């Protein structure tokens, strides 16, 4: 069986995100082979009922966004789509600038965001990871759940992704020179 199909079976079994390293380890292949096979699988799944979501160095299988109304009609549990203005702003910062410290979020929003961040963490819309460069602080990132809620298979499918990032990057670079 081709690697592509093995990965499909593995992701199907897991039903949650799996890191590319883990896939390579379980299938005893290199990570570059995994990435190649994922690209093929992505093509195979185009226009199918299942789709791959990518985030950082992990992937998961989800049900195509075109089936969203169907799946929603058979779901039993209710979903909360509501996000306050403050949550939306905070989530947007984290989506467009994945891997952002609380101090940066506070700087952009002009207010303390700790309460909002905790709320988003509990809802599973963001995750908090230690900063590898400075282990005393944490960085915030979107979760796979956020990507699925947004109906995108990777962050760069977010509205005006490149544009918004460029705008942020530009201004933030100035800031770095400044400090």
């Amino acid at each position, binding site marked *: 069986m081709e690697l592509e199909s093995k990965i499909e079976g593995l992701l*199907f*079994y*897991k*039903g*949650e995100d799996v890191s590319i390293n883990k896939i390579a380890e379980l299938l005893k292949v290199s990570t570059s082979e995994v990435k190649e096979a994922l690209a093929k699988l992505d093509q195979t799944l185009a226009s199918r009922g299942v*789709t791959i*979501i990518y985030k950082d160095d992990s992937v*998961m*299988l*989800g*049900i*195509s*966004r*075109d*089936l*969203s109304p169907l*799946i*929603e009609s058979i*779901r039993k549990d209710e*979903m909360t*789509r509501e*996000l306050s*203005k*403050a949550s*939306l*702003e905070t*989530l*947007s*910062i984290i*989506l*467009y600038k994945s891997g952002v410290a609380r101090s940066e979020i506070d*700087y*952009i*929003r*002009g*207010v*303390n965001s*700790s*309460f909002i961040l*905790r709320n988003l963490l509990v809802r599973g819309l963001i995750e908090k990871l230690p900063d590898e460069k400075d282990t005393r602080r944490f960085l915030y990132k979107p979760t*796979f*759940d956020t*990507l*699925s*809620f*947004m*109906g*995108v*298979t990777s962050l760069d499918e*977010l*509205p*005006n992704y490149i544009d*918004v990032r460029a*705008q*942020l990057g530009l*201004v*933030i670079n*100035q*800031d770095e020179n*400044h400090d």
Partner: protein
Amino acid sequence: MDENNTPIYEVKSAVFEGPLELLLSLIEQRKLFVNDIALAQVTDDYISYIKSLNNTPNEKHIADVSYFILVASTLILIKSKSLLPSLTLTEDEKDNISDLERRLELYKIIKNASIDIKSNFGAKIIFRPLERSWSDPFFSPDDMITISSMELSINSVLANLPKKEEKLPEVEIRKIINIDEVINSLTVRIQNAMNISFRDFAKSHNAQDINEARVHVIVSFLAMLELVREGIIDVIQNASFEDIQINKQVEEKAQ
């Protein structure tokens, strides 16, 4: 006076979570670009908003108000500079001003982006599959599961429990006190600059050179300081007022 003819924008009814949100909204209502000119124009409205915050005492808001006041001091500086072009800003002051402009730009980008996020969030979802139950659970413990490790773990959980009421952190309180000082020294700083500029102004002693617009500017500035006095903190000392009185007399001469 032109200053009085400019429409007063209704901001008091809206609730703004932070100073940048309020500032951006004031600037956008006037359809201005984010720059020092725009900031100088919205300063009065900004200060009257803080004033309305102070009139509705709510302890929960104290921390938030401190954020508003921090930005207010920079705004007052920008306004003063626009009214008194001869006012020379220090490097720190210039940095504060350009920093505020940058933050406003950043905030604007995010605010616009968040509109798209809002309209897409939950509109079309890529659902996760339901939880799998491929096989029955098989008891697979870990040597770490012992009474003592569970006690350690629960203690760590308890240590990180959310606090009952997010108390106003000490740092925040210190910040508020510092703002008293900041605005105090800012007032003295600007008034000194005004007196100097007045001296330059008086030296010429030539009716032709007396620029009415400039007088008007000083009056506006006084009105603004008055707002600051009433609205934010009672910072202006009597001695300082006397300085301003002198300026006022000159204003009468000019007429």
